[in-house]
């Protein structure tokens, strides 16, 4: 048997080796961080830029079990862990940001439906497509001052920013998906006595739905990006608000867990959507 070089396109690592390889970069990052932290703490034991393991644990503990500074303090001895968790800083910030995020997600649904119509009904296409092609080129963040004036600095300005930032791209994306549905399928549906809405929702929408979910998965990060931009500029709670506040105090022991927590949340949402897509649309995986 010929031993192929690891740089050969035809060489495949076995499963165990592949899993080990996928962990290497994580281990390298953690190692580098720890090394830097140890070196900096040798120079200054109170260093907060690259917190040590102890500092990180303390930071996570305070974020997870203690309320935010602006909220009432709950004494550790009189409250259960669950109650402390529910009043914690991270819970409050996650609930605020999550609420904004999921309301925006729900508000994108009508735009997906509109996109199906734009791709399928020529009259809709003629009316809307060019408008969204142009609108897509507007930098959403440049609209933030206008949104603050129009919606105030409450959560609706952030929700509007997410929707305005993501909706045009999703509309154009879904429109392309709809246009890619073979014409034969649409003609066939009409010969099976389907009416326009049967074709739109029973044939085309069903077929593009897995791709729409995938498109949504790809847009999760831009959505979070717009939310963070809004929260960092003007907010009184939220994950990005907390990161911005902590930056002023050099609170890297809280910022780093928050960054990882946001990444984990996005990863879990993405993973859930992937599982849902696989379960609901087994035919799409083929």
């Amino acid at each position, binding site marked *: 048997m010929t031993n192929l070089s690891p740089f050969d396109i035809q060489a495949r690592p076995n499963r165990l080796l592949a899993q080990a390889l996928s962990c290497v970069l994580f281990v390298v990052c953690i190692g580098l961080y720890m090394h830097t932290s140890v070196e900096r703490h040798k120079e200054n034991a109170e260093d907060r830029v690259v917190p040590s393991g102890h500092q990180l644990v303390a930071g996570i503990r305070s974020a997870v079990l203690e309320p935010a500074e602006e909220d009432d303090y709950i004494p550790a001895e009189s409250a259960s862990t669950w109650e402390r968790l529910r009043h914690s800083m991270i819970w409050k910030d996650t609930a605020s940001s999550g609420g904004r995020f999921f309301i925006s997600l729900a508000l994108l649904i009508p735009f997906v439906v509109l996109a199906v119509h734009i791709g399928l009904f020529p009259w809709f296409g003629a009316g809307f497509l060019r408008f969204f092609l142009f609108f897509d080129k507007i930098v959403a963040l440049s609209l933030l001052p206008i949104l603050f004036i129009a919606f105030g600095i409450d959560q609706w300005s952030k929700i509007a920013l997410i929707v305005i930032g993501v909706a045009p791209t999703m509309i154009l994306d879904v429109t392309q998906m709809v246009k890619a549905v073979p014409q034969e399928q649409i003609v066939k549906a*009409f010969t099976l006595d389907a009416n326009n809405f049967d074709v739109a929702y029973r044939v085309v929408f069903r077929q593009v739905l897995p791709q729409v979910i995938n498109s949504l998965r790809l847009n999760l990060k831009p959505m979070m990006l717009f939310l963070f931009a809004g929260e960092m500029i003007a907010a009184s709670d939220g994950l990005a608000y907390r990161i911005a506040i902590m930056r002023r105090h050099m609170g890297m022991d809280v910022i780093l867990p928050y960054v990882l927590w946001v990444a984990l949340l996005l990863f879990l949402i993405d993973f859930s959507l992937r599982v849902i897509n696989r379960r609901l649309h087994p035919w799409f995986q083929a």
Partner: protein
Amino acid sequence: MVSGMSTPEMTAGLHLIGEQATRAAAKAKVQAAKSISIEDVSVSYALERSARRCVLENISLEIEEGEFVVLLGETGCGKSTLLRMLLGQERPTAGQISVAGSRVERVDARSGYVPQRYSLFPDRSVLDNLMMGPLTSKFHILGRLRPSYWEARRAVKAEAFRQITHMGLQASDAGKYPYQLSGGMQQRVAIAQALMMKNRVLLMDEAFSALDPSTRSSLQRLLRSVWSETRPTVVFVTHNTAEALFLGTRLIVLARESKDDACGSRVTLDMKLAEGGMTLRTHGQEFLDLVEHVEAVSCGQRLTAPGERRTASDAWGEELGRVEPVRVSPEDGVRQ
């Protein structure tokens, strides 16, 4: 009473209206017997600089109920365009088309359709593909909320299973998705899907072109037997002569007068293929470019030399006496 009109005038008028109604009814009856009617249809597309490309020119055809018509011709001669117009997917630049007695304006359920590819809905199982037509026609988008839906669904499901076995598939295939079926099985389901609607007209666009020869042959036999049972009007587009001769009761060859000609195809040959023999009709003095396609009809006797140009009427006029019933060798996989 209408002012300014005397009683005899009115009687005459009513008589005229009655006559018109009778004539219209008679015309409708004739139209109904003629399952498909194509009258002086031309199709052309706009090109750059106000030029036009003519795809079909002055095509007129009458197809009677129960005929199995095969449209044969080279790639790009307009067979599929003609079929798309029968479906209502495209509109002729001139002329008009009627299917099942009424003019075709848009795609609707009067014709069944089996395309070459994408014939099944990929997101539905075989059973759901088959049930889709009958259920959609009775229950549109919110119809599932009606209690009668479930009763109708049971009846349609039973019919779908009957079609599955009728098409030579296993009952266990009912739950499979199209991607889990071979090309031949997919086309069997596609035919069953069209048959579920019990249309009197079935339009098939190169439905077997993507299949391997043995699957193709078995599907040809299946289609032929299905057609023999219920005798729907079938229009089948193909560029395969053996397939055309095996399936059709009537063969229509579309061809261009000249490959360099700016204007489109004409019906070059229209031929009735009866069971025991055949009669030939030619339209006008068109050149028979596709003579190599029809040579099999005369049991291998070449009617004209390849490339030699003779008018169709001349060629067939001379050779009519030598034309025999369709007999093509078994390896061609066509009717004996």
